[in-house]
C-alpha cells in the first residue's frame, strides 16, 4: 500500500472525532416530522387515536435510533471522546432539559421572545463551534433560528413564530442531514479485497 492510497491524516482525524455528528441520515426523519407538524395546512390532531405531535416525534426518534444501527452495521462503531469531558448522553439530556424549561417559560410567562427557539439555536451554534470548519451549515442555521426566535419583538404572534420556526428547523435538519450523509459516504475510500 502506498501513502497515496490513504486519506489525508487530518481528514481521518476529523472523521473519527466527529463520527456520530456526520451520520446525517439520522436527523432526516425528525426533520420530515417537524416540517409535517408545521405545515401551513391544518393536520389532524390525532392519527389512529394517537396524538399527531407525539406520533411524529416518536417516528423521528425511532428513525434516529434505527438509522444509527444502519451506520453501525455498515461503517462500524466508535466510542467517542466526550467533548470537554461531558458524555454525549449527558449533553443531550442537558439540551432536552433546557428545551423543556424554556418551553414552559414560553407557555406560562409569554415572554416577548421565543425562548425555546433560542435554546435550540444556541445549541446548534455551540454544537457546531468545535468543528465549525466542517459544520458551517449548522452554525449558520443556529444564527437564522436565533433571529426567527426574536420575531415576537416585531409583533409576530408566538403561534406563528413557532410554526415558522418548526418548519425552518425541520427543513434545516432535512437538508443538513442529506448533505452530511452524502459527504459521509464520499469520505470513505473503497475497501480492497484480501486478494490484492
Amino acid at each position, binding site marked *: *500500500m502506498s*501513502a497515496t492510497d490513504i486519506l489525508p491524516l487530518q481528514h481521518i482525524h476529523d472523521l473519527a472525532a466527529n463520527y456520530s455528528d456526520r451520520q446525517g441520515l439520522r436527523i432526516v426523519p425528525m426533520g420530515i416530522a417537524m416540517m409535517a407538524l408545521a405545515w401551513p395546512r391544518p393536520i389532524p390532531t390525532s392519527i389512529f387515536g394517537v396524538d399527531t405531535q407525539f406520533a411524529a416525534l416518536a417516528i423521528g426518534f425511532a428513525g434516529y435510533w434505527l438509522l444509527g444501527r444502519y451506520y453501525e452495521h455498515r461503517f462500524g462503531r466508535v466510542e467517542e*471522546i466526550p467533548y470537554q469531558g461531558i458524555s454525549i448522553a449527558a449533553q443531550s439530556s442537558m439540551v432536552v432539559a433546557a428545551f423543556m424549561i424554556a418551553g414552559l417559560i414560553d407557555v406560562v410567562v409569554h415572554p416577548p421572545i421565543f425562548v425555546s427557539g433560542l435554546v435550540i439555536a444556541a445549541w446548534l451554534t455551540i454544537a457546531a463551534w468545535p468543528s465549525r470548519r466542517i459544520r458551517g451549515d449548522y452554525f449558520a442555521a443556529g444564527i437564522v433560528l436565533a433571529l426567527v426566535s426574536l420575531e415576537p419583538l416585531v409583533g409576530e404572534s408566538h403561534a406563528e413564530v413557532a410554526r415558522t420556526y418548526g418548519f425552518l428547523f425541520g427543513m434545516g435538519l432535512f437538508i443538513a442531514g442529506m448533505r452530511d450523509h452524502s459527504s459521509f459516504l464520499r469520505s470513505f475510500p473503497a*475497501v480492497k479485497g*484480501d486478494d490484492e
Partner: protein
Amino acid sequence: MSNQPFERLAGLDRLVHEPARLAILTALSAVKSADFLFLQRLTGLSKGNLSGHLSKLEEGGLVAIAKGFEGKIPKTTISMTSDGRSQLEHHWNDLERLRKEATKWKPEKGD
C-alpha cells in the same frame, strides 16, 4: 554530516511511520475505541492487511485489542494505549522538527 534532516528522517520509528499504521493510529487517537469494521472502512485496507498492521501495533504496545461476541457476532474493539498516544505525539513532534530543519537546510559545498 550526520545531523542532516534527510538522514535523520530514516531514523524515524517505522512502527509508527508506515503510512497505513500512521492512518490507523491517527484514527484511534481521535476516539476512545473503534471496532475493526470502522478502521477497515476508514483506511480502505483489506481485512488481512488491517489484521497484520494491528498485530504489529499490539506487539509494540501501541494499541490494545479486545475480542468478544455481541450475540453470535464476533466483535473486535481496538483502542490506543497511553504509551501509543505518547509515541504518536512524539512522532508528530519529530516530524515537525524535521520539517522546520529541512526548510532551513542548505547543502554544503560538494554535496
